[in-house]
């Protein structure tokens, strides 16, 4: 390796240390107990502390079981992602391919209206949702959470999908019309499958937003629809903080995304690019 290439590793390794330390600490803490935490920093399993699987027993079915919240999170995140990406694709396709008019509004205005919803801070609507849900009995329900997450994810999904459709050549759909497809068929049969990388990237972003979201979950759920982030937050109790549980649940909650990121590394980057370049 040339000297010129070698110097690159200095900042890269420095950043790796900064990024890696908290992650390393999370992983080893998931295998600690009281004695390895409160007596001062302990760095090495089998070196200066004895690892224990106590946290994992508690978390996987024991006193701090994540099974329920994990199920809620999975149901809420996959459903909300599917619905918002579907509607977002429909709207993105309509805006990219056909003229849209409403009074003075044209395609760009409608598209701006949809994207501008993204600027809204979640806390603006959460109070209103809290009161509304209280009266329609949707507080602490999976359905209620799916609805609010769908609403919040649609703008970005529309925006991303619109830019993917804009990049696609229109000829293939024209061919489908000649075959006698109507517009919905052409969309479902031709356009949607062709944007698969974009569809995947958009779904992943939406999923990770819903999966990790905290404000809506802490305000609108209490028991029957709690999600993983809530499960993490409640580990701080009257008897002190269960650091080991927090770290174990955090690892469970990030696992699916790391796996997906490793498999889709290349695709995700090109997918993100398509969406980000308008």
């Amino acid at each position: 390796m040339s000297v010129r290439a070698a110097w690159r590793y200095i900042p890269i390794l420095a950043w790796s240390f900064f990024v890696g330390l908290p992650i390393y600490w999370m992983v080893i803490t998931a295998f600690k107990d009281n004695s390895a935490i409160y007596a001062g920093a302990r760095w090495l399993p089998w070196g200066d502390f004895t690892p224990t699987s106590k946290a994992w027993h508690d978390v996987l079915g024991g006193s701090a079981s994540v099974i329920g919240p994990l199920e809620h999170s999975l149901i809420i995140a996959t459903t909300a992602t599917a619905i918002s990406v579907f509607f977002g694709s429909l709207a993105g396709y309509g805006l990219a391919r056909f003229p849209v008019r409403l009074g003075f509004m044209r395609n760009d205005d409608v598209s701006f209206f949809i994207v501008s919803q993204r600027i809204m801070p979640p806390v603006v609507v959460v109070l209103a949702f809290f009161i509304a849900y209280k009266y329609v009995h949707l507080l602490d329900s999976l359905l209620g959470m799916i609805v609010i997450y769908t609403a919040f994810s649609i703008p970005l999904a529309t925006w991303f999908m619109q830019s993917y459709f804009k990049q696609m050549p229109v000829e293939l759909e024209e061919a489908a019309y000649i075959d006698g497809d109507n517009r919905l068929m052409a969309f479902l049969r031709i356009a949607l499958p062709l944007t698969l990388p974009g569809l995947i990237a958009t779904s992943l972003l939406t999923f990770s937003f819903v999966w990790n979201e905290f404000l809506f979950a802490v305000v609108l759920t209490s028991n029957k629809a709690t999600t993983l982030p809530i499960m993490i937050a409640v580990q701080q109790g009257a008897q002190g903080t269960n650091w080991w549980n927090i770290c174990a649940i955090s690892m469970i909650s990030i696992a699916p995304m790391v796996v997906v990121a490793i498999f889709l590394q290349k695709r995700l980057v090109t997918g993100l690019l398509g969406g980000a370049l308008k």
Partner: protein
Amino acid sequence: MSARGSGWPFVVPTVLLLLLLNIFPLIFSVVMSFSNVSTDNGLKLTEATLANWSQLLHDPNFWSSMKFTVFIVVVGVTGEFLIGLTLALLLWRKIPGGGFFRVLFSIPMMLAPVAIGFMFRMLFNEQYGPVDTILRGLHLPMVSWLSSTTAAPISVLIMDIWQWTPLMFLLLLAGLQAIPEDALEAAQIDGSSGLRVIWDIVLPMLAPISVMAVFLRMVAAFTIFGEIYLLTGGGPGTSTTSTTLLAYFQGFQTFNISYGSTISLALLIFVTGLATIYLSATRLVLRRWTS
């Protein structure tokens, strides 16, 4: 664009959903901010009042929360952009281990904000956290990361940069990889130095995606909540209370829903204003720079 009829059938479901689920709650929030809400025996709104808004203008907690939030947005997002750009440039060309570093560098943005808040509380702990152990080992002075009003905002900043530099890095890396090879080769044949090529060719081509990336981060950073809630709980004092945190406390701890709505709407006004200024300013600069 083909002219086969209107796109409305495709767009209508989304627009209706947004009207029902975003615009309607927004209007409801506005109504609440101009009255006083009680939910004890069914929902009751008092007659119209400006009390919440005048309270807001004279509330030192609101202004200090805005100051802190803007600090995180400006310093944090700038830092994330600069570090993300540097890392993207370093990992742009294939180097041994590049794939590993790419995955490692993207992990923080996938973690739940609450988990990150807890992790940094552990790291910054003054009795048994590793950060102070390292400082002690290097014979550097200890820092009261979370218990001093000057250090706590910096701790939040470090956490935010740790969490969100990955997004900048990924977006900018994607932008770099989209730059056509011939543009770069031509410059190299001209004999321009590496830094000149970056300054003259790479950065202008990266400008549009940079504008988008900063915009996305800026809007999101204004609503920072979960990670602070668990790192410092807004303290010590109110030194790390972001505006969203303040609105949450007002709405769900003091149960002053009207005032909570007012704070959140003030935040909305602020974000919208800043986003508009940012987008028009960058459009001007981009036009001048790239033409």
